[in-house]
């Protein structure tokens, strides 16, 4: 059974159809890069996986649980599906430690001392152990994004979603975040990442999914799909982003 299974997913905002019958399955341990123009529905699709976006048709399943079933406890599901956003979305009133430990403490009931150790561990992973007592506004964009990744990792999710996490960063800060992503990938995390970093996708992803006009237009092994696009749309897209 696939870890993530999207079947004919339809998402509309009013009369505007953003996802028009998207099907995709993700196996455990896979790293999927989702590329496409802005407005092609790639971020929306990602947000459907953890139930942030309600859908109008089809099904989204995670580990056998139907995400779009109203009876599904999304809180429980989200403990296993981490997401990192383009705009970091750290909690500005909390220190780095509290940002990371809030959910483990409140949602999972991890005792405070253990939570602190957990925060130290995930911060070491993203190379920011010394920032544990800092506040988000004292960190650079790249550091904030790495804290956001650490915060997500602290919940020990089975799947991580990355929604254009380097798009809001200054170019010189992109590298440090991608390095952390690679590190997470190396540890065997199942990942779905929406990205504009084609080079990174080629290097890290097992599979590339190209979204176009709310549809899954083309997909396949990363190097092959990016190297020899089969559809003119992907070809046009790639030549636009690579040049």
């Amino acid at each position, binding site marked *: 059974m696939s870890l993530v299974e999207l079947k004919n997913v339809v998402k509309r905002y009013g009369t505007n159809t953003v996802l028009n019958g998207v099907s995709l399955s993700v196996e455990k341990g896979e790293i999927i890069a989702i590329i496409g123009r802005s407005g092609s529905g790639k971020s929306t699709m990602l947000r459907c996986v953890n139930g942030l976006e309600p859908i109008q048709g089809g099904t989204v399943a995670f580990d056998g649980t139907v995400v779009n079933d109203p009876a599904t406890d*999304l809180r429980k599901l989200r403990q296993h599906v981490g997401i990192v956003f383009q*705009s970091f979305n750290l909690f500005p009133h909390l220190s780095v430690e509290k940002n990371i430990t809030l959910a483990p403490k409140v*949602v999972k009931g991890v005792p405070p001392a253990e939570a602190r150790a957990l925060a130290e561990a995930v911060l070491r992973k993203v190379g920011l152990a010394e920032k544990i007592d800092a506040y988000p*506004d004292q960190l650079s964009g790249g550091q904030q994004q790495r804290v956001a990744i650490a915060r997500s990792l602290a919940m020990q999710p089975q799947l991580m979603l990355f929604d254009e996490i380097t798009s809001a960063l200054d170019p010189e800060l992109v590298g440090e975040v991608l390095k952390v992503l690679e590190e997470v990938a190396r540890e065997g995390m199942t990942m779905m990442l929406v990205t504009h970093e084609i080079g990174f996708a080629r290097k890290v992803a097992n599979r590339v999914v190209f979204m176009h006009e709310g549809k899954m237009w083309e997909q396949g092994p990363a190097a092959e799909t990016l190297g020899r696009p089969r559809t003119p749309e992907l070809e046009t897209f790639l030549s636009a982003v690579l040049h």
Partner: protein
Amino acid sequence: MIRELSFIDVLYLIAATRWTLALTAIAFLGGGIVGLAVALLRVSSLAPLRWLGAIYVHAVQGTPLLAWLFVFFFGLSIFGFTVSPWLAAAAAYSIYAGAFLGEIWRGCLQAIPRTQWEAGASLGLGFTQQLRYIIVPQALRLAIPPTVGFLVQLIKNTSLAAVIGFIELTREGQLTTATTFRPFTVYLIVAAIYFALCFPLTQWSRRLERRLHVAR
């Protein structure tokens, strides 16, 4: 009988100020409880609850406080309920302050970006946990200046309670004027006392506001 205005009258005015303060405290406390409920209704994810909150706010903001005082004090007695002035004042002021505080606090809650709710939800926090740990602590900082501002309004508006028999600061001033026939001096003293209550509050609020601008 007309007599001279003396120091003792000033003391009486200051003594009457305690009712002004007591009314303010009751109004703020009752209004705070109602306001909290209204603010939560207004940000609820269920549309009927939001409408309920909106109807309440519009109804109360569109009617005079004086009318509410009359309704509770005189209105209910027509139906055979005896309502003490304290109870009538507590009810009327809670309803009134609740609508305004609710609206102020709703604004503060909504000023927190939706992405903060999303970040909390994505970590598995429920609605009340998101409110308690993420939204309210941030909204609180925004809420302090306008809340203090409203408190100042409230202090001055407690004078309306005179119509249902409270001898608070303004009413005491009227009574003093009646016996001394020195309205100008008396009301100047009354104004000075109000000022002494309100000015430190507005200053404090300004200081908080300045501090919030530099803080995150």
